[in-house]
């Protein structure tokens, strides 16, 4: 469909306008509250990766435990003093161990946790490719006796007529039931 035709069709224009309006509304909804300062943003991001040691599995951002609240305060103070994210993380690791970080480190044994998924994905992709190739290969004739059956021209014409008739039958059945309600 050429662009000229696209624009000249009333319907398409209406749909396009509605679509763009929806997208604009989305953008407005998302950006209307641009109120956080950079410091708050950084603190928030840090809080989400540091775990509250006494609440299993919860970050200090999520937990309302007293310890979590204290740790948030420490993060805020240190950021205000100009510490870098890695320093703050190291600070907590020193006190509570490696497990206080919710994101496993990329060194040593834990590197495995990061490496295996993409590796697995690649293996799966290759596997998928080969499976599809296998499914594509035509089956050996022995497997299904009917595969050897061929249709002559007359047979083809005759059968196709019957099939059309069969479908026509069911179509008219549908139409009849449509008419009935």
């Amino acid at each position: 469909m050429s662009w000229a035709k696209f624009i000249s069709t009333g319907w398409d224009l209406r749909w396009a306008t509605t679509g763009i309006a929806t997208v604009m509304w989305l953008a407005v909804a998302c950006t209307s509250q641009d109120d956080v300062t950079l410091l708050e943003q950084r603190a928030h991001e840090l809080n989400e990766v540091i775990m509250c040691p006494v609440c299993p599995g919860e970050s200090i951002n999520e937990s309302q435990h007293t310890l979590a609240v204290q740790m948030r305060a420490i993060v805020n103070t240190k950021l205000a003093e100009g510490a870098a994210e890695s320093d703050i993380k190291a600070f907590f690791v020193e006190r509570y161990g490696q497990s206080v970080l919710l994101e496993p480190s990329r060194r040593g044994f834990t590197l495995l946790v990061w490496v295996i998924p993409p590796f697995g994905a690649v293996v799966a992709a290759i596997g998928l490719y080969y499976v599809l190739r296998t499914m594509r290969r035509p089956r050996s004739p022995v497997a299904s006796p009917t595969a050897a059956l061929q249709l002559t021209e007359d047979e083809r014409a005759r059968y196709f007529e019957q099939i059309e008739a069969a479908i026509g039958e069911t179509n008219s059945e549908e139409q009849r039931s449509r008419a009935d309600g």
Partner: protein
Amino acid sequence: MLVLIAFLLALIPAVVVAYPLVRRVGRSLLSDEETQDTELASRWETAIAGLKNTELEWAIGNLATEDREWLREQYMTDAALVLKEMELEEGEERAVIATVEREMKRIRVRAGGEAPDSGE
């Protein structure tokens, strides 16, 4: 008292469970439909469903005409092969029946020394 309740409670499922064993209710039907017919019928239905779906998608505009033609060819061929197989089967059946009838006539002739009946 407790024993009585336990006994009654156990009685009901026991009766229910024993019923088929005792009355030999089991129909010989412990096999799911398994005939060549079903296989052919399901292939037929798959082909017809495919044809209908193709029509729908073409009417909607998802398929271009040439794709629709190609798909129709595929599905119609599938359905046609089913029909052909059915005919062959019936042809075979009839051939077998004819052979059996001939044999029987021959046996009757040999047994009774009579002229072959113009037979049923």
